C-alpha cells in the first residue's frame, strides 16, 4: 500500500511517501501500526484531530476500511485558495 504524507506530516516523518506492508483493516489500525514504529511517526500522528486522510485520493475518515485501497494520504487541514 502506498502511503503519502503532506505539509508538516511529511516534514515530521521525513519523507513524502513510502510503501507499507500492512494487515490493517482500517485507517485507525494503520495509524496505530505506524505510531508504534518510531518517534517521528508518533509525533506526526499524536493529535488525530489535526489530521485528515484521503483514500485513493478521496477525503475519508479514520474508521474507513482499507479493503481494496491502494493509496492512503495523511495531511493537515487544507489551506488552499
Amino acid at each position, binding site marked *: 500500500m502506498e502511503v*503519502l504524507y503532506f505539509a*508538516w506530516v511529511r516534514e515530521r516523518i521525513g519523507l513524502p511517501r513510502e510503501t507499507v506492508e500492512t494487515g490493517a483493516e482500517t485507517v485507525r489500525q494503520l495509524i496505530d501500526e505506524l505510531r508504534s514504529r518510531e518517534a517521528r511517526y508518533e509525533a506526526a500522528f499524536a493529535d488525530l484531530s489535526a489530521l485528515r486522510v484521503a483514500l485513493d*485520493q*478521496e477525503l475519508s475518515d479514520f474508521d474507513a476500511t482499507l479493503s481494496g485501497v491502494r493509496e492512503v494520504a495523511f495531511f*493537515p*487541514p*487544507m*489551506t*488552499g*485558495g
Partner: protein
Amino acid sequence: MRISVQREPFDLGAEADSFARGATDMGAVVTFTGVVRDAPGGGLRAMEIEHYPGMTEKAIRTIAEEAQARWSLGDVLVIHRYGSLVPGERIMMVATAAPHRKDAFEAAEYLMDYLKSRAPFWKKEIGAGEAGWVAAKDEDEAALDRW
C-alpha cells in the same frame, strides 16, 4: 470547464478577457483572484504552496461540477498555482459565467469556500528567520455551512 493546477504564473487580464469572451449568452461574469499578502510588518519572504498531484485536479473538478449542478451556470474556470510565490503574486483565480448575477456571484463564492477547505493545498509562510505552515481557520470550515 477549465481547471489548471500549475507552477507558472497566469495572466489574469488575458484569462478574464478570454473567459468573458466565451460567454455571449451569459449576462454576468464574476472573477475572484487570490493574491499573496505580505505579513503585517512586511516580514514575508515567500509563500510555498504544496499540493497533492492527482487528487488536486479531481477535487477541484468535483467542486466545480457541484457548482454547475447547483446554479444555472455557463462556463467555470479554476486556476491554482503551487510552488514558491512572493508577496503580491497571484495565487489563484476562479471565474464563473451565468445568465444572472446572483448565480455567478454565489457560484464563485461556493467555489472559493470549497477550494479553501476541500482542495488539497497547503501553504507555508517563509519569514526572515522562521517558517510556518498556515493553519486552517475555523471560519473557513464554518463558511461551508451556508451551502
